[in-house]
C-alpha cells in the first residue's frame, strides 16, 4: 500500500469513525444499524438498502419514513457509484453509516471527489440548502422537465431528491487528502414521525 493510499483511508476513516463515536453504543439513545466502508458494488447498494429497510420495519417505523430512507439511500449510494472519484490505485473508497436516534435517523455517506469538482458540488448543495422547500420542488420539476440522463445514467436529481425526502439541510464537508482528491461526506437527518 503506497503512502498516498494510506492517506485516503486515513482521512475517510476518520470521518467514518467520528460519526461512529458520536452515535456509538456509549449513548443509550442511539445505535448504528447499517455500516459499510470500502468499494460499493451495485449488489451492495441493493443489499444495504434492503438491510436498512428490514431494520426499520423491525423498529416499527411507518411506511412513509421507511420509503423515504430507502429513497435517500438509493439516491446517495448510486450517486457514489456514478460520481465517486477513484484514488491512484483505482479504488473508489466510500462509506455509509446509519444511526437511529429516538426521533430521527442520521445517515452518513462519503466518497472521494476530485478537488477540481469541489466548488461545483459545494455550490449545488448550498443552493439547495438556502432554498425554501417550495423552491427545491421547483428545481426538481425543472430538472425533470429538462429530462437529461447522462451516459452514466445519472439524472441530476440525487441531491435534490435527498433534500426533499429528508426535509432537512444536507450537512456536507470536504476533507482534503492530497493535490488531486478530497473526501466528500454528507450527513442527512430524517425525522421518524
Amino acid at each position, binding site marked *: 500500500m503506497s503512502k498516498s493510499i494510506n492517506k485516503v483511508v486515513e482521512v475517510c476513516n476518520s470521518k467514518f469513525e467520528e460519526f461512529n463515536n458520536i452515535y456509538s453504543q456509549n449513548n443509550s439513545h442511539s445505535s448504528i444499524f447499517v455500516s459499510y466502508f470500502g468499494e460499493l458494488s451495485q449488489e451492495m447498494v441493493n443489499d444495504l438498502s434492503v438491510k436498512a429497510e428490514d431494520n426499520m420495519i423491525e423498529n416499527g417505523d411507518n411506511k412513509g419514513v421507511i420509503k*423515504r430512507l430507502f429513497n435517500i439511500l438509493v439516491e446517495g449510494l448510486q450517486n457514489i457509484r456514478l460520481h465517486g472519484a477513484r484514488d491512484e490505485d483505482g479504488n473508489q473508497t466510500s462509506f455509509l453509516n446509519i444511526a437511529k436516534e429516538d426521533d430521527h435517523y442520521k445517515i452518513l455517506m462519503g466518497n472521494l471527489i476530485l478537488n477540481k469538482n469541489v466548488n461545483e458540488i459545494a455550490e449545488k448543495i448550498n443552493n439547495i440548502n438556502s432554498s425554501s422547500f417550495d423552491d427545491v420542488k421547483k428545481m426538481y420539476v425543472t430538472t425533470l422537465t429538462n429530462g437529461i440522463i447522462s451516459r452514466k445514467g445519472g439524472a441530476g436529481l440525487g441531491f435534490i431528491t435527498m433534500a426533499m425526502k429528508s426535509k432537512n439541510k444536507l450537512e456536507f464537508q470536504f476533507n482534503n487528502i492530497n493535490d488531486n482528491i478530497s473526501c466528500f461526506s454528507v450527513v442527512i437527518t430524517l425525522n421518524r414521525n
Partner: protein
Amino acid sequence: MPSNNLIIQEGKNTPKVIGNENIGELTIEGNSYPENVIQFYTPIMSWVENISETNDEIKVECQFYYIASSSVIAFLKLLQKIESLFNTKKITFIWKYEEGDDDIRKIGQDYSTILETPIDIVEVEEV
C-alpha cells in the same frame, strides 16, 4: 404473423413489464431503481415504437412502489415518446399509487403538469 408481446420479469430493482400488442396495452408494476435506466427502459421504448406502426391506441397502466429519480426521468421520457407516436386522444395513462403514498401520487401529478395527455391518478388499496 409472430406476436409482438413484451414480457420483462420483475427483477431485484426493476418492475414487471407486460406489453400486449393485440390490445395495445402496457402494464408496469414494481420497484424501479436500476443503476442504468437507459439499459432497462430502451427495450420498452422500442416496443412502443414497434406497436405504434400497427396500433392506433395505447393504454399505459403503472404502479410503482418505489422509484428512484433517474427512473422518474426515464419513465417520463417513455410517456413523452408515446405522446410523439400516438394521437393524444388515443392515449390512456393510468398512474396507480398505494393508499397514503403521497410521494408516488405526487410524481403522477408532476407528470400531468409536464405532459399534454391527462393522467388518471388512481389510489389503490394497500397490499
